[in-house]
C-alpha cells in the first residue's frame, strides 16, 4: 500500500507541476485531470474509497468538462499558444517560485518540528500516531445525512447561488462574439486589441 501512495503522490506532484508550465491549455487540462486521478488514488490508499470515486466522477469528470467547454467556446487554438509563449519568460517564474518555496518550507517545518513544553521538554512532532484508517461509503452516507443534514441543505443553497450567478453573467455573453473575427471587427474591442500581447489577433 505504501508504495501505491508514494507512486500516486509522485504522479500527482509531477502532473500538477506540468499543468502550470504548459503552453497549450488543452494539454494543461489533461495534466490536471491526470493529477486529479492520482489524487483519487491517494484517497483510495488512505482509506476513503467513496471520495476517490467522487474525485474521478465529479472533479475530473464534471468540473473539468466545464473548462473544456469554455476552451471550445473560445476556440483557443494556435494563437493562444503563441501568446502564452510570449508571456512565458524565465524571470516571471523567479518571484512566484521563491515565494512559494518559502511558503512550502514554512509549513513543512511546521509539520515536522516538535512542540516545546513550558518546562523545556519537547513533544514529538505533532502527529503522534500517523495512521490512516478506512472509512467506507456507508459511514460517509450515514453521517452526511445525519449530523450534516443541514450542511447538505446549505450546500444546495451554495449551488443555487452558483447557478443564479452563472445564469445572470452567462446570459450577457453572446456566443457569436467568440466565433471567428467578429470580436476583432467590433469597434469597441478593436480599440482594446492594441493593449499588448494579451489580446486576440486574427
Amino acid at each position, binding site marked *: 500500500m505504501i508504495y501505491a501512495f508514494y507512486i500516486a503522490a509522485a504522479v500527482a506532484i509531477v502532473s500538477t507541476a506540468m499543468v502550470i508550465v504548459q503552453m497549450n491549455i488543452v494539454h494543461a487540462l489533461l495534466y490536471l485531470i491526470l493529477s486529479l486521478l492520482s489524487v483519487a488514488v491517494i484517497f483510495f490508499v488512505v482509506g476513503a474509497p467513496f471520495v476517490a470515486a467522487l474525485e474521478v466522477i465529479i472533479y475530473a469528470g464534471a468540473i473539468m468538462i466545464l473548462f473544456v467547454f469554455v476552451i471550445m467556446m473560445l476556440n483557443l487554438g494556435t494563437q493562444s499558444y503563441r501568446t502564452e509563449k510570449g508571456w512565458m519568460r524565465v524571470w516571471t517564474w523567479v518571484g512566484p517560485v521563491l515565494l512559494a518555496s518559502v*511558503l512550502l518550507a514554512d509549513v513543512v*517545518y511546521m509539520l515536522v518540528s516538535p512542540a516545546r513544553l513550558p518546562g523545556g521538554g519537547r513533544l514529538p512532532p505533532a502527529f503522534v500516531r500517523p495512521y490512516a484508517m478506512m472509512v467506507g461509503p456507508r459511514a460517509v452516507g450515514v453521517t452526511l445525512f445525519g449530523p450534516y443534514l443541514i450542511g447538505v441543505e446549505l450546500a444546495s443553497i451554495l449551488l443555487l447561488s452558483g447557478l443564479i450567478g452563472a445564469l445572470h453573467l452567462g446570459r450577457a455573453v453572446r456566443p457569436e462574439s467568440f466565433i471567428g473575427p467578429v470580436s476583432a471587427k467590433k469597434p469597441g474591442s478593436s480599440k482594446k486589441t492594441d493593449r499588448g500581447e494579451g489580446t486576440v489577433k486574427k
Partner: protein
Amino acid sequence: MMLPYLWLIPALPFAGFLVLSVLGRRMGNGPAAAVGVGSVGLSALVAILVASSFINAPPPAHVYTQTLWRWISVGGFAPGVMLYLDSLSLIMVLVVTVVGFLIHLYSAEFMAADDGYSRFFAYMNLFVGSMLVLVLAGNLLFLYLGWEGVGLCSYLLIGFWYREPENGAAAIKAFVVTRVGDTALAIGLFLIFINLGTLDIQRMMNLAALHWRPGGALPTIAAALLLGGAIGKSAQLPLQTWLPDAMAGPTPVSALIHAATMVTAGVYLIARTNVLFTMAPAVQIAVAVIGAATLLVSGMSALVQHDIKRVLAYSTISQIGYMFVALGVGAWSAAIFHFMTHAFFKALLFLGAGAVIAGLGGEHDIFRMGGLRRQMPLAFWCFLAGACSLSALPLVTAGFYSKGLILSSAWEAGRAGFWLWAAAIAGALLTSIYTFRLVFIVFFGEAKAKISKKPGPRAAIPLVILAFLSVAGGFVNFPAFFGIKGSMFFSRFLASALPSATYAAPLPETDLLLEAVAAIVSLAGIYVAYFFFLSSPEYSREMAGTAIGKVLKRFWFEDWGFDWLYEKTLAAPYRWLARTNRNDAVDLFYSFIAKVNMFFHYGLSLSQTGKVRFYAAVIALGAVVTITIAVFAR
C-alpha cells in the same frame, strides 16, 4: 405631578431647533416664528407647571433627579445624562424659559425684515435648549456640554449679520476670550474627575467635603479653575472685554444671551458648586474682589459710552459684578435673587433700547436721539421702569430689594466687608448716574430725529410684562425688617439648595440703616444725572473738557485700556510670532509629518497596481509572514 415631564423643558427647544434647521428654508416666516416662539413658549409653560408642582408638593429633600440614560459606561466613568432639579435650578429654568419666551416673542417682530429669519430662531432655540441643559445638568460633563453649546450659539448669534466683517470679528473675539475661561474650566473638570473619580455634581461635592481639607491645595486649585471658567463666561475682570463688542449681534440676542441668561452662567456655576468654593476661602475672597473691582471699572466705563447698547453692556458687566460680590461673601441666595431681577430689568432695557434703535432706523448713538418720550410713550415708560429697577429706586422696584440684600450681606462679611460694601455703594451711585444719563439723553430734551417705526403688539407685550416684573419681581423677597409675613420668601425657598449666608444676617436695625443709605445713594445718583445731563449739561461738557476729564473719559471709554493692553501684550506679540514663525521650526515639524505621510501614501499607492496576480502574491506573502510569526515567534 408634572415633575416627570422635566425632560420636556430642554427637549422642546431642541425639537424646535431641529425642525427649523431641517425645514427652515422651506418654511415661511410665519411658521418659522410659530415653531421658534412656540417651542420656547411650551417649554416655559412646562417649566411653570413643573415649578408649581415642585412648590406645592416638594419632592423628598427638595431635589428631583431624572436620569435619562447613561451615555457611556466604562469602568468608573459613567456620565449619566441626568437632570437635577432643585430650587436653584428651578429658578434658573423659570427665568431662562419665561424671559427667553418673551424675547422670542419680541424677536418675531424685531427680526421680521431679516433674511435669516428661520436661521435666527433656529440658533435662538438651540441656545435656549443648551442653556437649559446647562442649568439642569446633574453632572459636570453634561453641564460642560451646555456650557459649550451656549458659547457656540453666542458665537453664531453675535456674528449673525455675518456680512459685516466687524460682526465676525466681534464673534471671534467673544469666542476666543471665553475660550480662555473654558479651558480653565475643562482643566478643572479633569482635575476633579482624576481626584474624586466622579463628575456628578452632588457626589463630587460630598466627596470633596469628605476627602479634601478645607483651604487645602486641591480645593483651592479646583475652585480657582472653575472660577476661571466663570469669569470668562460672565465677562468679569479681566476677561470682560468681549461683552461690549458682543453687542454687534441683533438686540434680542443681546437681551437674551448677553444680559439675561448666558452671561450669568458663571454665577450659576459658582452657586452650584458652592461647597467647593466654601472649602477654598482664598478663592471665595477672590470672587468678591473680582466682583467689586469689575462693578466699579465697568460702571465708570458705562458712564461715558455713546452707544446705547454698549452702556447697557457695561452695566451688565457691572451688575454681574454685584452677583460675584454676593457669591464671594457667601450670600448665595442674594446672588441668585439679583440674577433674577437683573434678568427682568436688563432684558427689558435691551428690548426697550431695541425698540428705540428700530424706531430710529438702526441708530445706536444716544447723542443723536432725544425727546423720544412723546414719540414713543410705551417704550419710554417701559424703559423707565427698567431704569428705575436698575438704579434700585427705593421700595417700588425689584432692583432695590436684590441690590439691598447684596449690600447688607457685604457689610456683614468680616473685615473685608466694609470695603466691599463701600465699593458696592459707590457702584450703586455710578449705576444710577449712567442709567439716568441714558434716560435723560434719549427720552428727554428736544427731538433730534423722526421715528419711523413703533413697536407692534408682539414687541409691546413682552415690554409690558417685563416692566411689570422689573417692578414687582422683588416683592418675593421682602427684607426682614419690614416685618411682613412671608418676608424673605425667595431666600427661604432657596435654602433647600444653597446654604444660608456664611455670615450672620445683620440686625434689622443695621439692615434698615443700610437700606436707607442705599436708597439715598440711588436717589442722589438720579439727581446727579438730572443735573449734569438734563438741567445743565454745560457742566458735564465743561468737566469733560478739563485735562483730567479728557483723560478719564478717553480711558473709561476705551474700557480702561484692557483691549489696548491685550492687543499690545498678547495679540500683537502673538501675531508677530506667527508672522516670523511662518516657516519656522514648529511649522516645519508639522509639514514634515505631512510630508512623511504623503511619502508613504505615494509609496503605498504604487503597490495598488490593479493587477490581480500581484494582489495574490501579496496575499501569499502575507500568509508567509503570518505563518512565520505564528510558528517561529511562539
